[in-house]
């Protein structure tokens, strides 16, 4: 069995007096794709924010490659090899596509075949065509490709995607799913949040469903595929 890359134990997170996470337990092994599922407002994005250090955990532990990170700053967590493709993309509007990528390029996981700007352009030829365009001149789909490319060029141990297909046209969504499948084949460890359960079942190895800040269910794609009661109960499908 592969090494545990990320281990979350008893994670509790609150916004002021309002507690959102009540003891999340999950782990992600190297090379796995894990989906985080649940209805809106159940704590998915807060879990991601806690991993990234953007919202400080009030209890529990988060270990990345055996090192505790729940008290680390977001920049330290990013440097240690966690890359977030955030909801809303948040690319730099006044930098060109190439500059958006070059500003983040590095080899944080020490791979022998790192993602480079040129390699990202091969993955998304559409971005190569737009290399000199400013971020704010891109369509929503191109912005999403750039956000994924920006995460890739950091060569992260763990890549996290929060609603990466939201607001995208069907064809572009398909491109994003195809890209994630390719990353999976290349061995990239991924934590993904999305609302398209059927696509997540095809992509991910395992799934964690969060309900009211607690883990309600964890299992494999085959198990989730076989139990549509879970879809209905926890995902509103």
């Amino acid at each position, binding site marked *: 069995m592969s090494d545990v890359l990320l281990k979350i134990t008893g994670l509790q997170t609150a916004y002021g007096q309002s507690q959102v996470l009540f003891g999340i337990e999950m782990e992600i092994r190297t090379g796995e794709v894990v989906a985080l599922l649940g209805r*809106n407002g159940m704590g998915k994005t807060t879990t991601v924010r806690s991993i990234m250090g953007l919202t400080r955990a009030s209890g529990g532990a988060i270990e990345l490659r055996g090192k505790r990170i729940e008290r680390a700053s977001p920049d330290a967590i990013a440097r240690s090899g966690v890359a977030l493709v955030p909801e809303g993309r948040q690319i730099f509007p006044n930098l060109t596509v190439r500059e958006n990528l070059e500003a983040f390029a590095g080899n944080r996981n020490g791979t022998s075949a790192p993602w480079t700007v040129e390699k990202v352009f091969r993955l998304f030829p559409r971005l190569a065509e737009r290399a000199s365009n400013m971020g704010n001149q891109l369509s929503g789909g191109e912005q999403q490709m750039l956000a994924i490319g920006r995460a890739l060029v950091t060569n992260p141990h763990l890549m996290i995607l929060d609603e990466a297909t939201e607001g995208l*046209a*069907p*064809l572009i969504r*398909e491109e994003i799913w195809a890209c994630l499948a390719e990353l999976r084949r290349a061995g990239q460890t991924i934590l993904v949040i999305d609302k398209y359960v059927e696509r997540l079942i095809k992509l991910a190895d395992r799934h964690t469903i969060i309900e009211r800040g607690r883990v309600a269910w964890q299992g494999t794609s085959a198990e989730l595929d076989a139990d549509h009661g879970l879809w209905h109960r926890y995902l*509103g*499908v």
Partner: protein
Amino acid sequence: MAENLLRIESLHKRFGGIVATDGVTLEVERGEVHALIGPNGAGKTTLIAQISGSLAPDAGRIVFNGADITSLPQHARVTAGLARSYQITSIFKRFSVEQNLALAVQARSGSSFGFWRPVASETALEDEARAIASQVGLAERVNAIAGSLAHAEQRSLEVGLALATNPKLLLLDEPMAGLGPDESQRMIALIHHLRESVSVLLVEHDMDAVFQLADRISVLVSGAIIATGTSGEIRANEEVRRAYLGDEITG
């Protein structure tokens, strides 16, 4: 044949060297839910902005309810019966649901603007605000602070704000954005219910929603309409599949 509520004729809009709207001609009939779909960056939001009046076209004509509104300012178009909701939720987050709706009703009716009286003291405003809240499924949440509402409830409130202007045509820009599957179904039910009283121009990428709701669909690619037709016609259109739908044919 039903009379057109909205007719757009050869609309053009350019940003420097970029052609955003390239001779769009489009008609929305009375009582119709008309969906506008197309790739990201095709110019859908720019087109909606020109219809609602937040952006002026370079050329072309917009006729609404029999009158040329091409050069009318945005607020005059609202008065004429055009209301728009946005891709990004835009509500008064610190006000209650009822206050949000009462303000929108007041803005339409110009009933008071008595600055020294709290808006909620006006019974008629309050009644109408509550009726709209009920219409959009927020009857139980009228006293909740808008910022504390769940995302789906905020989207419903935004539709309510548009309804408060008593529109003839509702421009809905991605109302399903960020909604989960069950929330999307509730929004679909809401729009389906609204069609009894208002026509809708719906911009949406959620094809389940589009195919369930739309009487007709127009497809915008690179600033131009490449096809208009029923769900069946659009699904079967090879050019639309190539440009937008791919193999995601649902419903």
